[in-house]
């Protein structure tokens, strides 16, 4: 079977279900058989509208309506584009239009609660009233595009990763293989469905395995993280996934009274990925939740990216975490030298079913064992490319002899396990969320139209978290005016992205570009950390200040 639809329809039954738990605790349920019925009816409606092979943008709140619409698209051979629901009254609709244009999407789908708010996009509610028995399965092959995963929503460089049915089935099978002979029976989580880990690691994995899925909204999780562990307790879940942030947030926020009511003993797989994994997050969580029955062998740290559908490497069930320590000064020289007193790094598991190569980013030749280089991947999970961007596709997906994906991440292999050490691409990851410098720079430009160029990048704080720094060019002026500019820019970025920011205002011309006009963000980062910039005004987070003070 070469397509997700035929595979999933083999598991349809009335005793498997999706359960969505609302913020107020109410639950809504859909059995797999009913989900299939609605998806077929929705597919009939989409096909009648001539949507076959034309992408549709899916703007939904967390819940079952998204899953129905997503499947209806797959059942109708409509490439689905999951994206975050724009907040009302924000400037997000510009981004939505960029996505629509970039993907060549013909239709915006949403639920009945949001259709009026999205009327400027001609959004519609998918009609599941048609007779599902009039649905005829479309011709689908391994190469048919199933959905587009947008890795950047920026208006300057949107990039939609084309995931085929073949990619999806291969990656889902890698996940299943992690669990060994006994596949998971019940998945629980809170990750958003527009996030590759929420879509593939929860929703589609449940449908692929024929397992129950119990889920909640990301906001409900952030507000009351105990609700996630209560889902696991109440439904006896055996599989969950989260970025490192989610586990750390539980350890931090859950009270002793809440802990006393939890039972995590059914959990046999807790996947961690999508952002750098801290060894301390695991040990802190284990210590805190051991009384609730959580076992250290439950962890499955992994590494992946949307360009490889989701997963590249992951630790199989029951093996527990491998942590090795390395000489920090050698790591800076791109060498991995074990040192018991060094920096602890978490192994992200072996590559199972994909080829992995560590390559020098400078000359694309494989680095010797123990050397750090760019992680390259090859195999059936590697996506088709970026939609409508042949140049970027060639540069990223056709490296080496033409069939290697350049991940833009740095790492090394030791005893067959991958360790991720850094990044040469520009993305910044905060609390499991990918932030693109282009988006931050655009927000800064909107906040102050007279300011010049800007460059955003991430720095690693002493606590291991990433922090955003923005270098902004301004005209020289009196300090009061500079303070005001700084305030405007920081207010705008804080509000739009919900992150703290360190800002440095510099004279015009200080933000460097290449001769072809490309921003040199990594170079700006080095200048910033090395004290090589002459600021007119700075607003630095205290932790970032210490970082600069420690630079020799």
């Amino acid at each position, binding site marked *: 079977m070469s397509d997700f639809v035929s595979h999933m329809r083999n598991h349809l039954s009335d005793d498997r279900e999706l359960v969505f738990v609302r913020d107020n605790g109410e639950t809504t349920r859909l059995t797999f058989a009913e989900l299939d019925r609605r998806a077929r009816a929705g597919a009939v409606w989409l096909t009648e509208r001539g949507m076959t092979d034309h992408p549709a943008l899916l703007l939904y709140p967390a819940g079952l309506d998204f899953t129905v619409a997503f499947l209806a698209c797959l059942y109708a051979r409509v490439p689905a584009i999951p994206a975050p629901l724009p907040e009302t009254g924000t400037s997000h609709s510009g981004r939505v239009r960029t996505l629509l244009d970039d993907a060549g999407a013909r239709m915006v789908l949403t639920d009945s609660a949001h259709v009026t708010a999205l009327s400027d996009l001609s959004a519609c509610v998918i009609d599941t009233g048609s007779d599902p028995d009039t649905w005829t399965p479309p011709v689908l092959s391994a190469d048919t595009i199933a959905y587009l995963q947008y890795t950047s929503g920026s208006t300057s460089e949107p990039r939609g990763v084309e995931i085929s049915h073949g990619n999806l089935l291969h990656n889902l099978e890698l996940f299943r293989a992690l669990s060994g002979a006994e596949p998971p029976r019940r998945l629980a989580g809170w990750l958003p469905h527009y996030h590759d880990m929420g879509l593939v690691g929860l929703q589609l994995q449940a449908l692929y395995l024929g397992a129950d899925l119990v889920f909640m909204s990301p906001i409900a999780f*952030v507000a*009351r993280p105990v609700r996630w562990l209560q889902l696991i307790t109440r439904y006896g879940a055996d599989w969950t996934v989260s970025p490192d942030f989610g586990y750390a947030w539980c350890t931090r926020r859950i009270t002793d009274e809440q802990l006393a009511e939890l039972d995590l003993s059914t959990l046999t797989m807790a996947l961690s990925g999508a952002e750098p994994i801290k060894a301390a997050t695991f040990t802190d969580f284990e210590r805190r939740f051991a009384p609730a029955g959580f076992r250290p062998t439950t962890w499955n740290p992994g590494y992946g990216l949307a360009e490889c559908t989701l997963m590249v490497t992951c630790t199989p069930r029951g093996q527990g975490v491998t942590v090795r320590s390395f000489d920090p000064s050698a790591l800076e020289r791109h060498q991995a030298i074990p040192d018991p007193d060094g920096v602890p790094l978490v192994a992200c598991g072996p590559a199972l079913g994909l080829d992995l190569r560590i390559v020098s980013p400078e000359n694309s030749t494989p680095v010797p064992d123990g050397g750090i280089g760019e992680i390259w991947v090859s195999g059936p999970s590697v996506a088709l490319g970026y939609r409508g961007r042949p140049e970027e596709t060639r540069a990223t997906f056709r490296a080496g002899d033409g069939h290697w994906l350049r991940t833009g991440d740095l790492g090394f292999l030791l005893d067959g396990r991958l360790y991720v050490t850094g990044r040469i691409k520009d993305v910044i990851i905060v609390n499991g969320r990918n932030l693109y410098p282009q988006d931050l720079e655009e927000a800064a430009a909107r906040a102050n139209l007279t300011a010049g160029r800007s460059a955003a990048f991430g720095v690693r704080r002493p606590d291991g978290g990433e922090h955003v720094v923005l270098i902004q060019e301004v005209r020289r002026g009196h300090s009061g005016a500079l303070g005001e500019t700084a*305030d405007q820019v920081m*207010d705008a970025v*804080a*509000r739009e992205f*919900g*992150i703290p*920011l360190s800002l440095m205002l510099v004279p015009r011309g200080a933000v460097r570009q290449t001769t072809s006009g490309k921003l040199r963000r990594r170079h700006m980062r080095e200048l910033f950390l090395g004290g090589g910039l002459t600021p007119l005004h700075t607003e630095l987070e205290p*932790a970032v200040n210490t970082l600069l003070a420690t630079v020799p």
Partner: protein
Amino acid sequence: MPPHDLRRWLTEKVADHLRMPPADIDPAVKLRTYGMESIHAITLCVDIEETLGLLVDPTLAYDHPTIDALTAHLSELLPPPQTNTPRPLPTGTP
């Protein structure tokens, strides 16, 4: 909660979320300066809901970005404090 109690309570909550001593928070300085981010802002909304019984918008901490501004805004939303002084008995009652 009288305004000065509300101010102290907010300062303690925010300081706890940001892992810093309450005395280091200047009530007139924007909280983003201290590293306030969306997860803290949402958590503060939960605190306000659970302790003060007020349902507030998740953008609260951006609309009212300092302890002073939050105190002023929430004081307006809260019912006026009950006075504990016993009302004097009307004169002339038997």
